[in-house]
Structure formats: structure tokens, C-alpha cells
């Protein structure tokens, strides 16, 4: 009998875990239902490039140029003119109340200046308390505005040509030209959902045994720490696989996310990612004494990983130190992989670095868990 590892004993532990998992109906349903629910909820709800934002218009004259400008702005889908304000003060108040995100002011001399080629101006005030909400709307602005003017002045063709080259602002969104944020959110959600369920479930693995009093018996029997660890985490690979299937199918059916890269490459990367997550959860469970502590530790880990991984905010937009910190979360690496493979069709070469980081996490967490595992009740 090998003291350190035996497949027979691992088999016994796995069988037990699967039976328990099957019997725990509510948890089981949650493991499959929650990902779908979250995907649908967040997939539709989160939008980092919001459209149809409420806006107020302040325009004192009602000439052709002003009308053209307003309709051009409305055509972008970003602006929805809910209010026509009589004065700047009234518009100011609307914005202060939060009733509008933008105030567009077209001065009374606008038409005159256009005709005189005397650098016409319009003023757009954006509520920048949520910068990401306004950024898309603002960035399209100058393009739209100049094109609208050029259209109105259409007769001077060559003048328009020169003006165009001066005025045009190129907004170029690669890989997602329409700026559909679901293309970015949904693959990211795959990682977030996996992280949530995998880490949470496995973080309870040992504390549950301790709280039910079965740990004492388990430790009194000849199961080695490595067997107990694998017995606890491997069943969740299966759960993870089911979740991945659910999310990928839903991504295709509900959100029509393009899938450019190789499915098998993505699945292999997911496997490594899930393995690192369940081992992380298990490591947490070797540190926590109660399920409550396990929960707290999980959340302690969860929030920074969401904020710093590039799921919520653009990774490159963070200061250097935060980017370095972000590297310590498996989610960060997985997000790069999943976006690269699904949306850019990256091959293994392109994601090798990120995959090796995940492999490193697997060994790190496994080692830490084995080191932390208490063979005694001390």
C-alpha cells in the first residue's frame, strides 16, 4: 500500500463527492442555474458603451443648420433629445438633477458663422461623473458635427473636401467595429461566472467536513492529503465543463457572439483556468475554520479580481502598479485568453504566455494547499 497516493482511495473519495453533490439538489441546481441567470442578466444589462442617452437642447434660432445638426446628433443613437430648454439655466438644472447626460447648445449666431466660414461653434456639455458613459457619445461628436455641416453646405464640393480632411476624426474600434459591448462582456462573463462558482464551492470543501464533524473520521482513515485534495476538486472540473458549455452555447444563441478562434484551444485553456480556480478555492478552505470564514475569504479575493482583471475597467487604463497587481489573478490571464481566442482568433503561440501563467497558478495553489493542509485536528 502506497502511503502517499493510491488511485483506489482517490476513486473512493471521488465517488463519495459525486454522490454528495448529486444529493445536494439546491447547490446542484445553483451550479447550473446561476451561470445561465448571470449570463442573461449581466449580458443584457452591462453596457460599457451606452446609447440613447438623455440630452437637452438649447437652441435659440431654428435655422436649417441647427436642425441639421440636431438630427445628425440624434442619428448617432447616442443622443436622445428629451428636453428643449429655453435657457442655459434651465438646461443646467436638468443636468444637475441627472435628468440628462448631455446639454447641446447651438448659439444663435451659428448659422451666420457657418455662412461666413467664421469657425462655427456648438457647445456640448457632458455629465462626466461616469466618464465611460459619456466617452462614446463625445468621441463621435466632431465627426458627426462636421459631416452634418458639410452636407448642408454640399454645393462647395472642393471646399468640403479640404474641410473634411481637416475636420474628420477617425474613430476606429478594432475587432468590434460596431462597439457592441456584449462582445467584450460575454466572454468575460464566462471567466467571472466560473470564478464565482468554482472558488466559492471548493472553498467550503474542507470547512463543510469540519462543521459536520466528518473531518475527524476522514482524518482517522488512511486518505492522504493529495488524495483528499484531488477528491475534492476534480468533481468540480465536471461542473465547470457543464458551465462552460452552457455559457458558450448561450453566447452563440442569445448574443450571437462571433467565435473566430479554435474551440479546442479555448477549452484546453478553460480547463487550466478551472483547475487553478478549484485549487485556489481548496487553498482557501485549508485556511478557513468555518464556512463563514471561507465565504469572507472568497469575497475578499473576488472583488479586487473583478475590478483589476480588466473585466470591469480597461486593464490598460489602470496605473502601472494596479496592472502589476492585476497579474496575480487567474481571471486577468483568462480574460486575455478568451477574448483573444474568441474575438481575434488567436492561436496557441499568441496565448502561450497567458496559459503558462495559469499553469503556474495551478502548481502554486496545489503546493500551497498541500502545505497548509492539517493532518491533525490541532
Amino acid at each position, binding site marked *: 500500500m502506497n502511503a502517499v497516493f493510491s488511485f483506489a482511495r482517490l476513486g*473512493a473519495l471521488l465517488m463519495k463527492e459525486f*454522490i454528495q453533490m448529486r*444529493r445536494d439538489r439546491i447547490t446542484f441546481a445553483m451550479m447550473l442555474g446561476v451561470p445561465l441567470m448571470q449570463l442573461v442578466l449581466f449580458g443584457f444589462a452591462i453596457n460599457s458603451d451606452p446609447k440613447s442617452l438623455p440630452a437637452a437642447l438649447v437652441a435659440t434660432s431654428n435655422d436649417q443648420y441647427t436642425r441639421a445638426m440636431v438630427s445628425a446628433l440624434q442619428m448617432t443613437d447616442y443622443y436622445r433629445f428629451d428636453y428643449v430648454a429655453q435657457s442655459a439655466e434651465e438646461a443646467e438644472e436638468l443636468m444637475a438633477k441627472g435628468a440628462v447626460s448631455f446639454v447641446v447648445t447651438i448659439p444663435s449666431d451659428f448659422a451666420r458663422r457657418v455662412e461666413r466660414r467664421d469657425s462655427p461653434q456648438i457647445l456640448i456639455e457632458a455629465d462626466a461623473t461616469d466618464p465611460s458613459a459619456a466617452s462614446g457619445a463625445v468621441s463621435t461628436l466632431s465627426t458627426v458635427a462636421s459631416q452634418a455641416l458639410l452636407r448642408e453646405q454640399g454645393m462647395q464640393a472642393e471646399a468640403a473636401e479640404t474641410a473634411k480632411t481637416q475636420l474628420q476624426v477617425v474613430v476606429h474600434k478594432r475587432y468590434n467595429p460596431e462597439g457592441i459591448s456584449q462582445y467584450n462582456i460575454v466572454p468575460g462573463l464566462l471567466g467571472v461566472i466560473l470564478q464565482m462558482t468554482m472558488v466559492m464551492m471548493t472553498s467550503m470543501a474542507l470547512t463543510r467536513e469540519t462543521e459536520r*464533524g466528518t473531518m475527524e473520521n476522514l482524518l*482517522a482513515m*488512511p486518505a492522504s492529503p493529495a488524495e483528499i485534495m484531488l477528491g475534492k476538486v476534480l468533481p468540480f472540473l465536471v461542473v465547470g465543463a457543464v458551465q462552460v458549455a452552457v455559457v458558450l452555447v448561450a453566447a452563440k444563441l442569445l448574443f450571437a457572439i462571433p467565435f473566430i478562434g479554435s474551440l479546442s484551444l479555448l477549452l484546453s485553456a478553460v480547463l487550466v483556468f478551472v483547475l487553478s480556480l478549484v485549487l485556489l478555492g481548496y487553498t482557501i478552505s485549508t485556511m478557513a475554520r468555518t464556512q463563514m470564514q471561507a465565504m469572507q475569504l472568497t469575497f475578499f479575493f473576488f472583488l479586487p479580481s473583478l475590478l483589476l482583471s480588466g473585466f470591469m475597467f480597461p486593464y490598460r487604463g489602470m496605473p502601472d502598479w494596479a496592472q502589476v497587481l492585476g497579474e496575480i489573478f487567474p481571471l486577468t490571464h483568462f480574460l486575455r485568453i478568451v477574448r483573444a481566442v474568441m474575438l481575434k482568433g488567436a492561436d496557441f503561440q499568441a496565448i502561450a504566455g497567458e496559459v503558462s501563467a495559469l499553469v503556474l497558478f495551478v502548481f502554486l495553489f496545489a503546493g500551497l494547499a498541500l502545505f497548509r493542509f492539517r493532518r*491533525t485536528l490541532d
Partner: protein
Amino acid sequence: MNAIEVHNLVKRFGTKTVVDHVTMSVAEGEIVGFLGPNGSGKTTTIRIMCGLLTPDEGDGQVLGYDLLTDSLKIKREVGYMTQKFSFYEDLTIGENLEFVARLYQLQPVEEHVARTLEELGLTTRRDQLAGTLSGGWKQRLALAACIMHKPKLLLLDEPTAGVDPKARREFWDEIHRLARDGLTVLVSTHYMDEAERCHRISYISYGKLLATGTVDEVIANAGLSTFVVSGPRLNEVAAALEGKPGVEQVAPFGTTLHVVGSDRKLLEASLKEIKARKDTKVEPGETSLEDVFIQFMAGSKDNMA
């Protein structure tokens, strides 16, 4: 070789010394009872012996293996039945036994499980969830599961707490049968009748081993004298005796009163007046194990943390 041979075991939790220099030996094939009030350190001592706790001081051998370095080997050859039911309540009886059989790599699994179920008389309830069993049946399942791998030493922690008398009787018959086949048993209990079914007993209080030996030896070493008082209005007699010099315990036993003390002369002097009453009889009686334990408990402070 003794099955258990431990010296000066000490275990502290924080500043509290829960096991205080306990030395104990149990010969092969012996059934030793482990007695003591709640919180006296029985469970902790047993856990040290099966490698579930590391002692802060002391050393010893269990089944010839070193307590400090060979705990894995000890685990494989010891059967430990925990005080609280610690099999899986969400697994069926059969699944629990299969799990244990597989962990100990007993081959073939099905044969071991079927035989154990047969012996337990639980074959028809194989698919019942263990959590739905009554207390007595849980204990029997736990015992069956921990002897399945044919251990050489059984450590039983209050195995019959909350079990009805008939089931207890059967439990002890089983333990004696196993001991005849050479199994060594250390069993903690609160029941006097169970203590009397042991070859030897050890009494622990406040982490200290106070007495050890056969029941008769423990009673004799306690050096107590007991008188049995019979007659009318025993309540009144009891009240009169309470607190008199030499009277250490006054306890009603059915229609008689047991009066116990460690100083025989003083005790007799105090009983003189009662004895003089016409209708009341005072006779020397046998000191029981219970009298001895009550004496021990009175002598040490409350153990409850």
C-alpha cells in the same frame, strides 16, 4: 508488547492544560474502560493515541508504532469511533460502508460491505440515508464501519451514549467477542455497569489520571468505608447526617441510604446516634464504583470549561 504504551502525555489548548502527564498502558486483548467527568480530557487523550492530535509533551507507542512519527501507520491499524457520529449523513448506509471499504482498499468491496450489513442486520436498509437512522443504529453503523478493516486496536469514544439498554448490552457482547479474537479495546464511558464489564479501568479528572486498575483494585485503593442505613423517615436521617464529621457522601438507594466516608472511625462516630434509634438499622456495606467516582469528582473542581 502492549497495544498502548504512552508516557506523560501533555496537551494544552491555549493556557489550559487539558491532558496533564497521562501515562497509560493497555495490554493486547484487554478491554480498558476510560472514565471521567465531562471535559476531563478523555476525547483529547484518545485523539492523541490515534494520531489526530499531536501531544505537546510526552511520547509513546501504539501497536508498536511511535506516536509522534508513525501516525499514518497507526491510523491504518486502529479503528476509531468518534464521540459524535461522523459518517456521512447524506450517504446511505451502504454507500458509507463502501466508502470505508474502498479507502482501506478491502477487496472485494462488495463482499465486505455485504458481510458487514449482514452482521449488522441492516441488509434491508442498505439504501436508507445514514442521517435518518436513530441514535442507537448510528452507533452500530459506526462501530461496524470502524471494525470493517479488522483493526488490531479499537478506540471507542462514548460509543453507547444515548443508546437503549438492550442495544448497549448487545454492543458490549460484541466488544467482548472481538476481544476474545485478540482485539484490544479502549473505551470511554459514563456508565458504571459498562465500567464493570471492562478488564481494567482508568479514571481521569481535570486531565490527570487519578486511578487505574481492575474495578476491585480501584475500589480498594480508594479506601472508602460505606454504611447502609435502613428504616423509616430516611430523608430526615439524611438531613441529620449531612455535614457531620467523616460523612462525605449521603445518597439514597431505593429504601436504603448509603453513607460514605474515607475515615472509618470518624464515620462510625457520626453514625452512632442514628444507630441508637430503635427502628433504624446501620450495617457496613460494600463501596460501589459509583461511590468512588462521586468521591473523585467531589475532590476535583468542575471540569467544564
